[in-house]
C-alpha cells in the first residue's frame, strides 16, 4: 500500500512515517502542498494523509487540487483545529475522513483501514465471524467459545463483534465508545474498562487461553493467533 503523508511539523512527520511504515505502508512524505502535488503526479497512491495547516496553502485547497488533477485515492484529513470545518464535512461526505489531533495511533490505523476498505468493492456481508475458537453468529446474535454458548447481553455482543472484526488490531477506548455506543466522549472514569472486564469474564473464563488483551495506555486487542 502506497501512502502519501502531507505534514509540515517535523516531529509529527517523523513518528507518523515510522509508525505507518511499521504498520506495513510504503510511505512518501511531503512537507508542503507543492511537493505533495508533484509527488501525486509522479506516482499513484492508494491513500493520502493530509494535515490541514500547511505552510504554503490550506490542506483543503490541496485536496481539491489533487482531485482536479485526477487523484482519486481516499484522503484522511488531520486537523489541529478545534471545530470541524464545513468544507471538511463536505469532503467527509465525499468518502474521505478526518481525525483531530492529538490522536492515538491505533485510531489513525483503523481509519486508514476503513478508507481503504471503502475503496475496494465490498464482499458479501458475512453472517458468521470466527477468530480461533470464538465463533459469532451475526444473524442469531449468538457467540460461542469452543462450541460453548456465551451468555452475553445485546450490548456485550455488539462490543465483542467490534473486537472480533478488528481482531489482531488495537482498538482504543475512544474507538469503542464511538463505534459501539455511538458517543464521542472522553470519560475520565473507567467506564469502558468495566465493560471489557465483564466481557472478558464471559469470553475468557478461567481455564481458557485469554483472547482479550489490555494494552495499557493504548487500548485493547483481541488476539487472532
Amino acid at each position, binding site marked *: 500500500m502506497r501512502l502519501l503523508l502531507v505534514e509540515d511539523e517535523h*516531529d*509529527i512527520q517523523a513518528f507518523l512515517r515510522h509508525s505507518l511504515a511499521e504498520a506495513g505502508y510504503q510511505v512518501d512524505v511531503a512537507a508542503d502542498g507543492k511537493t505533495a502535488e508533484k509527488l501525486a503526479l509522479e506516482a499513484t497512491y492508494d491513500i493520502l494523509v493530509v494535515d490541514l495547516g500547511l505552510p504554503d496553502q490550506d490542506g483543503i485547497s490541496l485536496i481539491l487540487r489533487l482531485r482536479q488533477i485526477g487523484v482519486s485515492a481516499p484522503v484522511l484529513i488531520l486537523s489541529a483545529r*478545534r471545530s470541524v470545518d464545513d468544507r471538511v464535512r463536505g469532503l467527509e461526505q465525499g468518502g474521505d475522513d478526518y481525525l483531530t489531533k492529538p490522536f*492515538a495511533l491505533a485510531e489513525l490505523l483503523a481509519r486508514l483501514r476503513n478508507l481503504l476498505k471503502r475503496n475496494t468493492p465490498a464482499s458479501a456481508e458475512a453472517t458468521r465471524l470466527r477468530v480461533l475458537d470464538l465463533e459469532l453468529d451475526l444473524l442469531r446474535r449468538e457467540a460461542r467459545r469452543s462450541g460453548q454458548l456465551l451468555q452475553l447481553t445485546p450490548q456485550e455482543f455488539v462490543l465483542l463483534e467490534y473486537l472480533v472484526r478488528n481482531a489482531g488490531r488495537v482498538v482504543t477506548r475512544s474507538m469503542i465508545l464511538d463505534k459501539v455506543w455511538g458517543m464521542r*466522549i472522553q470519560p475520565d472514569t473507567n467506564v469502558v474498562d468495566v465493560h471489557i472486564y465483564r466481557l472478558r469474564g464471559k469470553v475468557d473464563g478461567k481455564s481458557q487461553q485469554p483472547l482479550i488483551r489490555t494494552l495499557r*495506555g493504548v487500548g485493547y486487542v483481541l488476539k487472532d493467533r
Partner: protein
Amino acid sequence: MSSRTANPVVRSAAWRISLWPTLAFACGTLLVFLFLHRFVASDIQRRSDAWLAGEVEVLGDVAEHTPKNALYDRVVGEVAELAGKEVPNRFMSDSRSNDSVFFLQTGADGSLRLWVGAGDSAPYLQAIQQGHILPDHPTDVHVPGYGVPFRVASMRIEDGSLIYLGLSERDQLRVLRHLRYRFILLWLLLVLLGFLIVFYTTRRMLSHVRQITEAASRIGHSDLDARVPTSDRNDEVGHLARTLNRMLDRIQSSVHQLHTITDSLAHDLRSPLTAIRGKLEMSLSAATHGEQAEPIVAAIEELDRLTEFLNTSLDVAEARADALRLSRSELDLDELLRAMIDLYEPSMFERGLRVQLHSTGTLRIRADEALIHRMVANLFDNEMKHLPASCTVTVSLRTANDEAVLTVEDDGPGFAPEVREHLFERRVKGRESSGHGLGLAFVDAVVRAHGGTVSATNRENGGARIELTLPLSTPSSEAAAQEPALARVRHNGA
C-alpha cells in the same frame, strides 16, 4: 406568538397609536363645527329679524295711513301677502297657501281686527296674547299645532291697535338641519379617512420595526451573519436598523476574534501534544518490560486528560461568551439517557453505586448530540467521583412548561458548603475532588448554549441534586435551526 392570535389589529400598536390622533381630530373638527353652526344660526336669525323689523314697519305705515273703510282689510291684507312672498331663506312649501308667514292685527282691546295667513286665526291670536311680545323686538312664539315656532315682530300704531308679523322658523331650521347632516356625513368620512391613513402609515412603519425585532431575535441564536433589514429612509426606524447592524458587526467581529484565538490556541497546543503522544506511543511499543512501560502509560493518560481539559476549557470559554458553535440535530433525550446509563451502569455497580432512571418516555430536543453526550458523561463522572459506596443516583426526565427537565440526584453527602455557591464556575472543586474542576462549568456552558437553565442544590434529606432544563424541539425551532449560519461564521473563523 400566542398574544397575536386574539385580534391582531386591535392588539397592534398601530391601532393604539392611530386611535388617539383620530379621536383628537374628531373632537377638534366637531368643536369647529359647533362654533360655525352657532354663527350661521345666529346670522340667519339676525337676517330674518331684520326682515321682520323692516316689513312690520312698512305694514305699520300702511295700516296707519290706510283709511279705515271697507277697503282697509283688502289693502293691508294684500300688502301683507306681498311681503310674505319675499320671505328670506324660503324653500318651496308643499301646500299652495303660504303658511310660513302670517299677519295679524288686533284692536286696542285685544280683539282680532285683521288676519292674513293660512288656516284659522284663533290659535295664533291665543299664542300671541299669551306670549309677551315687545314692540321692535322679534320674539319666538309657539303656536299650537305647529312643530316649529314663529318669529313674531309687533308694532303699535297710532289708533292703538297692534299689528303682528310672524315668520315661521321652519325654513331657517331646515337650512341648519341640512348643514348638520352634510357636516356629519363629511365629518365621518374625514375621520375615517384620517384614521385609515394614520393607521396604515403607522402600521407600515411598525412592520419595519417588527421585521427588525424578528431579525434581531433570530440573530440572538447564533445566526451572526444575518442583519436586520434597513431602508433608505433617514428616519428613526432606519437609524435604529443601522445602529443595530453596526452593533452586530461589532459582536460578530468579537466572536470571530474569540474563535480565532481559541482556534489558534487549540492549534498551537495540539500540534506539540500530537508529537509528544506519537513519541510516547512509539517508545511504548519499544518498551518490553512492564516497569519501563508504566511511566509511559501514565504519561499518555495524563496527556489525554490534558487534551480533554484543553477542549473543555475552550468550550466553556466560548459558551461563556455565547459563542459556542453547535451543530444541532433532532434527538431523543430519553433514548440518549438510557444508552448513557447502559454505558455507566457497570462502572457504577463496581463502585457500589446504584443508578435508576425515571422517565416519561420519548422526549425530543434539538441539540448538539456530541455536546449533550459529553455533558451527561460529565454529570455521571461527577457522581462517580464524589459518591461513597452504596449510594443511589436517580436520573429523572420529564417535561414542564414546554421544556425538558433532567434531574440527577443522589443520596450522598451533597455539595460541600465551600463550593456550593460557585459550583458552575470554572476550576471550582471540592477538596477531595480529583477532577480538573471543569465538569459542572462545562455542564452549565452546554445547557446555556442550548438555551436552558441549570441549578444545583442539596436535597433536604441529604444528597446533591442537579436540575437542568432544555427547550423541547418544536416545529418553529426546527425551522429556525435550518440556518447554516454557524458554518458561515466558522468559515471566517477558521
